[in-house]
């Protein structure tokens, strides 16, 4: 009986330990902190910092470098789309449609996405999402991830205009 319980516990542990979390996990040394825009110290570049993280994760290092060195300051979805088009970056986005499926697609395909939060004052990266929690990367604290409940994250995102954007290239390979 003891052995059976141990075996069951081991199997459950093995099954949960298999997959890497978060599914989008750029090495810390490659993550760029949010940078100041033309408007001074209070003018961040969180949208571009998020895009750079995702481009690097999807193997587009030259495009990431282009975005990092050419763009800064606050951004809305229309201007961002124009800039991504101009840079020749393949991307997908949703805004105002409360399209949670877009977020689930971004995580299921291991691409991740930038998400507007804090009443649209900030953009961060959604790097994992399941039925209970969301794992987020904030370009203001680039060294670590933080986890919130799925409900809390969705509430924040939906009240921020449900804007999400992701480059569409090949996601990085699993680590094992």
């Amino acid at each position, binding site marked *: 009986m003891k052995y059976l319980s141990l075996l069951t516990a081991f199997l459950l542990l093995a099954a949960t330990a298999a997959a890497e979390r978060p599914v989008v996990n750029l090495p810390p040394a490659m993550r760029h902190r949010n940078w100041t825009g033309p408007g001074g110290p209070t003018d961040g570049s969180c949208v571009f910092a998020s895009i750079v993280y995702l481009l690097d994760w999807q193997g587009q290092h030259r495009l990431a470098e282009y975005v990092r060195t050419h763009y800064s300051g606050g951004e809305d979805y229309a201007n961002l789309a124009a800039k991504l088009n101009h840079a020749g970056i*393949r991307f997908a986005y949703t805004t105002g449609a409360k399209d949670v499926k877009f977020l689930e*697609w971004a995580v299921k395909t291991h691409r991740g996405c930038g998400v507007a939060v804090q009443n649209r004052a900030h953009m961060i990266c959604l790097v994992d999402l399941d039925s209970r929690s969301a794992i987020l990367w904030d370009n203001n604290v680039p060294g670590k991830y933080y986890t919130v409940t799925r409900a809390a994250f969705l509430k924040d995102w939906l009240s921020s205009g449900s804007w999400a954007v992701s480059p569409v290239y090949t996601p990085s*390979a699993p680590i094992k």
Partner: protein
Amino acid sequence: MLRILLATMLLACASSLYAGTQERVVNLPQDGDKLFVTVFGDTADCARITGWFNAVPELKAVKSRTHFNVYPTTGNMYQQRYAKSIKRLPTVKVQTADSDKLFQLSGPSLTTGEALAKHLNTGCIRRWGNCCPQQEAAPEPEPEVAVDDGDMVEPIEDKPSDLLLVGIVLVGMLAGSVVAFKDKVKSLVK
């Protein structure tokens, strides 16, 4: 009339130019279940092996149906993310999105593209047909799987499927509950 024609032509030109610069993806690729094929090695090895994936028909087909990544040892991604898990270079690895390693071939075993295609065909594709470029083809003869340089090839053992795993867990839990219930009944009777 001429003005209208000219205006129409201008409009058509402008809209086609605009469409040409649109990079937005509307139909999201549903490729979350695709396998990952990854090449690790120095710059020369990466170029050589990538060349096979562009030239050998079987490998071309594999490449087109999977997420194909190349990580040279000089790159940040290799150094920061993969170096610890790669024991021998160059390496070609096939994985599921959930990190399950299905196939790996390393070092001097990576001789030619044709040999790699053969190893892939026997070591990986027959078991996990979804990366197979020629699933309908006649099965490969058995002996090719056992490779002489076995220490170089790192075949992955057959793993229990998720369903089997769930089954084992459920049976374990059920058996545990039955035994516990019996014990309880026994103790009650006593």
